[in-house]
């Protein structure tokens, strides 16, 4: 099969957060092993639309280019995913690029995902250590627990699971699967479990775990294969126990 000479991109652009979005087409020279990012880079080097109009280069986010930093999430042919692992030859053409829709737009393909990081503060997603001076070894932990934590700790806050979730919208405050999964991660740790109740209280409030409709699309789109539905079930169970406990204690 002879490769095509060029690849057509149809990109949704937006100049500012409050301005109207519009579409532009670009024709990019085909190169072997090209991915969406390398094509966007080619557009930067020659910012001219398919119709021959000189325009501003497209703005997008990326950093690692290895699917490990979580920066480059966008909708590619309607599907939320990382642009750095989106190989041109594996995509249907023309290729449609759009920014994620569930986060405030910044510019073109860039969105603002600070909500995810704010949620990490709400659920205290950290270990409350006594200080960073030399206190010797950490707690002994079985490798099985470590393995369980490892899988959860690979979450790169990319936002795919939130974009896909029917419950997560721009104007509600649903926390979403990534945050619930982090609660599970920290509750699993011997030190983290000391703050377990505070974390559970946080997800039992508004926008918390009770609002999850169990549609399970989050788990399907997670590029890190994080067992999100398991996390939701587990944190749900922990919250129910906490609720019963609260009922008797408070």
């Amino acid at each position: 099969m002879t490769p095509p000479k060029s690849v057509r991109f149809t990109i949704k652009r937006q100049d500012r957060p409050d301005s109207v979005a519009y579409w532009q087409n670009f024709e990019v020279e085909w190169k072997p092993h090209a991915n969406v990012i390398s094509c966007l880079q080619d557009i930067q080097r020659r910012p001219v639309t398919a119709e021959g109009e000189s325009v501003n280069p497209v703005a997008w986010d990326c950093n690692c280019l290895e699917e490990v930093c979580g920066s480059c999430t966008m909708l590619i042919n309607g599907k939320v995913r990382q642009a750095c692992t989106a190989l041109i030859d594996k995509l249907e053409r023309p290729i449609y690029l759009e920014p994620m829709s569930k986060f405030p737009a910044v510019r073109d393909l860039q969105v603002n995902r600070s909500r995810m990081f704010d949620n990490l503060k709400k659920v205290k997603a950290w270990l409350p250590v006594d200080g960073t001076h030399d206190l010797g070894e950490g707690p002994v932990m079985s490798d099985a627990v470590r393995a369980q934590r490892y899988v959860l700790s690979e979450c790169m806050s990319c936002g795919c699971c939130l974009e896909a979730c029917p419950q997560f919208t721009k104007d509600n405050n649903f926390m979403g699967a990534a945050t619930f999964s982090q609660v599970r991660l920290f509750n699993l740790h011997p030190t983290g479990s000391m703050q377990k109740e505070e974390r559970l209280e946080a997800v039992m409030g508004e926008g918390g775990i009770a609002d999850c409709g169990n549609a399970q699309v989050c788990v399907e789109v997670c590029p890190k294969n994080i067992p999100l539905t398991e996390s939701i079930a587990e944190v749900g169970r922990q919250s129910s126990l906490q609720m019963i406990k609260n009922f008797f204690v408070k």
Partner: protein
Amino acid sequence: MPRRKKKIIIIGGGLAGLSAAMKLCERDAEVVIVSFQNLKRSHSVCAQGGINAAIDAKNEGDTPEKHFYDTIKGGDFLAHQPLVRDMCHQAPAIIHLLDRIGVAFNRTGEGRLAFRRFGGTLYSRTAFAGATTGQQLVYSLDEQVRRFEHDGMVERLEWHEYLGAVIDDEGVCRGAVLHDLHTNKLFTVKGDAVILATGGPGQVYVRSTNSVVNTGAAATQAYLQGAKYGNGEFIQIHPTAIPGQDKLRLMSESARGEGGRVWVPRRADDKRDPKSIPESERYYFLEEKYPLYGNLVPRDVASREIYDIVYNHRLGVGGEPMVFLDLTHKSKAYLEDRLGGILDIYQKFTGDDPKITPMRIFPAVHYSMGGLWTDFERDSHGLIDHASPRNQSTSIPGLYAAGEADYQYHGANRLGANSLLSCIYTGLMMSRAVINFSNNLNRSFEDVPSTVYEQTQSYWENRFRDIRKMDGSENPYQLHKELGDTMMSSVLIVRDNKTLEKTQHAIEDIETRFKDVKCVDTSNWANPTPSFINQLYCMIHLSKIIAKGALMRDEFRGAHYKPDFDLRQPGDFDPFEYIDYLERKKNGEAMEDSHYPEGHLDYMKRFEENNKKWLKSSIATYKDNGPEITYEDVDTSIVTPRPRKYD
């Protein structure tokens, strides 16, 4: 009256910046941490292999002293020894701290930390968290910093770019000029000290294993403002990376370890499917040249030979700079079992299945041993004086550097899994230095006239206004690519003075063309182009440092090779002979050829002469629009430098 809290500005949220932030908060400082993107997305997440510490969990007899020796030797003796020694001695405590803050390190059956062996050592010294150690470390440190942020001690300025330091009339750094990458507004922040933890400069070569924000611009800007830049020419190359249009990704050396064969078609223009090229028309150059080691030659050699085949013999696959790394002779089950993970990565980024098609690989720029020159202070025992404000200070008082952005710790070549350690060590260790520096200041930033800040801000406003007005014919992104191609083809592993002279002219050409750049985007919201143009300007200056340093360093040390200055180490040479040689010399014994195998004495004399001249850090200072290179002695007070074995 309670003393005002010290206010420290940290640029960069990789491992160095995050650990500095965490420790400074603990010392009750007010911290502003600045980064291009969310801290959690910093380049440090890319590290896979692990982090070193001689904990000796397997009772193999490993000690911090051995770790120290391996580090110094790996760096070909070009690192200041007291600091490296201190780092290696702190390493076990650092690993324990990381464990306590929740890094999901792999564990033993007993639930303690597991260690593995990594290139270049005999000990299980490397702690690892799956295949994503860097990511796990960044997240745990980011969580601690978020905890302090929650308590109101940290201000995170993500989506902000550091442009330059604010330096007062006494030459002291008093703050930083920042660029809000969304509003595109410039402003200054005042502080008692500024730490540059801005990572490496892989983007000078455009395609490397580094992340896209690793332009080295912040460190270069410090150099343009008068800071010294050390050992710029020492760039570490990884022999096998996956070529990509956008980036070169690491392919673990275990692919060769498990039987991978490196070859190219014998005919330069052979465009056939590699599987259909018969054995007789394949050139297994490593196997032919090194019958003993074959494909398992060490990193340096593999890199050099691949480079030679591609650039000197022009035999790169399909005319491109790449060679085949072939595993297709192994059974699928074997490969799945031994190399499953890394082969998946290859497939994910190239679309080809390496179990069916030979992989295409090429050496890649990976790490910079050079960076901002930083200071340290020894106490009367020759150990590091941890209270000294000089530790990690650049030559501009009040401006500090940490992590890959500084030049310490690795010498001429980095020992695998030591970079993460150096980033965290410097971040933690410098906190006392920075606080003590702030305490000793004779006036605080509050007393610095506001005109100092206003003038620096207006300098940058004018600079950006001028950049936006640039309306020439060159596309800045295209020009960047050409700069990278120039650096790639001549300032990589094998270095030749004639070529390097040409490279310098090529860089000057690019500098001239830079004046004719067009600012392809002049809008006022979230516009990355003016920033990029400024970064490109810095990268041009940094490439001058690297290229000139490489041209001037007429020797073969560490990560780079200059064939014209190869000291021709005898194949059977034992580095300890040299210690014997020095001993005899010291005792005034007659030195005769008969004491050593043939040719060894001559070699040792050559080695000694060479060290007199070159066992020095190269220091670049900005003068007349370019680097002036001078040399500084290296502190070799603990172990005697000796030849490194290159075979």
